[in-house]
């Protein structure tokens, strides 16, 4: 996990191999224009637009996970809870109080962040696999509770949101608008990630990931940094959950809190793309979501579970042979092609 460049100079000029926030801003702008163009080209094809919308959404969600999971090294499998909080809160506010989902994004993000901080405060005592198991158990508690408290969640039957098209309702008749919406979410997540990665706070997070004791010895308030990272990550995840609820217009416990489909998938996409890198989650989502959707649509009817067989095999192969994900492999290839000597620390 030492794929992150080590900062050479904290002053205005960046060290070789380190990009400034301004450079990332340009990159994100170019990337989002390319993705927008992609959505534009397929603007008449609802099947592909649906896949693109999911790809953008999960790229954004995985980027959000990456803030605490990748930069901070806290392998959370409980992000489905924050996702569900955003979705249920938005659905309830819309159903019962006719509050526009756009406005509901604010309390959705806030509640997810508060719950994340409250739950993480004790669980951050645990490290590595123990933290992962505890967050996974947390997801399962949420699953049971979501089934139980029917007044808030509709229980196992779920909540359906009536179709009333309109910008204020965040409900659109064409899928292109949804793809745009998800793209906007992705860009927001990338911008926040870039800002975090190139800030003092981001370096604190990475220091905590590399060696918690050393970070503490260097004067970093470890718990505070981890809590802040988790809250930020959860807030973005809550917003993603809200958008997901408005896209599907249906929420129930299995769709929101399934471990393989939601909670773990954020982590898996990031890991496949390159955990702890800015564009890794996007790369992972661009690979995984379309492949999975395609397999589910093409083969799911004939042989159930094919998409997950492929996903499982991909996971094992990436863990064994591409530990640094698509971005890591791409960077290594680029370095070999340009035969430039690797700069900075790195060297894993």
């Amino acid at each position, binding site marked *: 996990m030492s794929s992150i460049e080590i900062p050479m100079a904290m002053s205005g000029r960046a060290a070789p191999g380190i990009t400034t926030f301004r450079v990332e801003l340009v990159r994100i702008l170019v990337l989002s224009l390319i993705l927008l163009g992609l959505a534009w080209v397929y603007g008449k094809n609802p099947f592909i637009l649906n896949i693109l919308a999911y790809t953008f959404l999960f790229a954004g969600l995985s980027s959000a996970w990456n803030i605490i999971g990748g930069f901070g090294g806290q392998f959370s499998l409980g992000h489905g809870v924050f996702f569900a909080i955003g979705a249920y809160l938005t659905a309830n506010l819309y159903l019962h109080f006719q509050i526009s989902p756009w406005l509901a994004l604010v309390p959705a993000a806030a509640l997810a962040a508060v719950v994340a901080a409250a739950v993480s405060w004790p669980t951050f005592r645990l490290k590595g696999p123990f933290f992962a198991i505890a967050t996974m*158990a947390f997801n399962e508690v949420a699953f049971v509770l979501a089934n139980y408290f029917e007044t808030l969640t509709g229980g196992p039957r779920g909540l359906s949101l009536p179709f009333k098209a309109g910008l204020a309702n965040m409900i659109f008749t064409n899928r292109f608008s949804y793809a745009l919406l998800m793209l906007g979410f992705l860009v927001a997540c990338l911008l926040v990630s870039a800002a975090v990665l190139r800030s003092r706070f981001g370096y604190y997070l990475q220091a905590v990931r590399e060696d918690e004791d050393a970070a503490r010895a260097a004067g970093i308030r470890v718990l505070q940094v981890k809590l802040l990272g988790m809250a930020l990550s959860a807030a973005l995840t809550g917003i993603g959950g809200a958008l997901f609820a408005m896209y599907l217009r249906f929420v129930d416990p299995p769709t929101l809190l399934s471990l393989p489909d939601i909670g773990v998938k954020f982590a898996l996409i990031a890991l496949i793309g390159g955990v702890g890198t800015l564009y890794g989650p996007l790369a992972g989502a661009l690979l995984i979501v379309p492949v999975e959707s395609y397999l589910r649509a093409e083969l799911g009817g004939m042989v159930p579970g094919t998409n997950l067989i492929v996903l*499982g095999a991909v996971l094992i192969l990436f863990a064994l042979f591409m530990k640094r994900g698509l971005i890591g492999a791409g960077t290594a290839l680029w370095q070999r092609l340009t035969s430039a000597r690797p700069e900075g620390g790195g060297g894993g």
Partner: protein
Amino acid sequence: MSTFLNILVVGLLLGGIYGLVSIGLNLIFGVIRIVNFAQGELVMLGMYGAYFSYWLVGMDPYVSILVVVPALFVFGVLIQRFILQPLQNESMMQIFATFGLLLLLQNVILAITRGTGYTVPTDLSTVVIDIAGLKISLVRLIALFAVTAVAVGMSWFLKNTLPGKAIRAVTQDRRAARLMGINVELTFMLTFGMGAALAGLAGTLLAPIYTMSPQIGGNFILAAFAVVVLGGLGSVWGAFIGGFIIGLIEALAGYYLDPALKHAVWFLVFIAVLIVRPGGLFGIAGAEEVGLREQH
């Protein structure tokens, strides 16, 4: 009073099942320090192995133990050798790989069986023992006896045999064990093989109790994690007793609180124990952090 006793019996029998699944997980967890998310799927494979033996030659599930357990031992050795061994000291990648294994095994079985639920008949499955109004299902009682036998056998094996001593030495300090001439990699393969074999044993014994589905491993794995954490990392008796504690909590919460909430209750207990005493009730305090220290 008799209701209460009945609940206790239900809880203990359930605890036997949880303990049976947990001992193998805890062995792997404690010795190799790998969180094997696919352990529930190994149990599932054991169940389908029992069904396959029945379907092929009409074998009774209790006889198929002789086939399924060695098969899973070999499978476990192969997983350790080819998937987990290359990932030593990378706990994140191990989580990742065992989760991939979970998805792979679950859905391969789903693709093969098309999700049909199977049960394996045995002459014993309908037998219910009635002791003063307490109804005890024989197949569950067999699971209870089996977990006791396994716990006794395992602790004897770890204490008195050379491979058992090697496993304990590797658990305590990998580097020192290596310096003493113990083949650490071989010990790990043996351990994972045994863990998988125990999962297979659990699967065959549970085959007459549950209707099989490819996802059934998920019912056990979280309970097994709770048991392992509760009982203590790497402790055989911890897993044994932890199984009963979780079983009893589930039965009591299911009756006195609400059946829908029983899982939430033991998850909360589990999280509480993780936070208050991460080493577990019978574990060594601080053991949970050793797994992250780089060992060579």
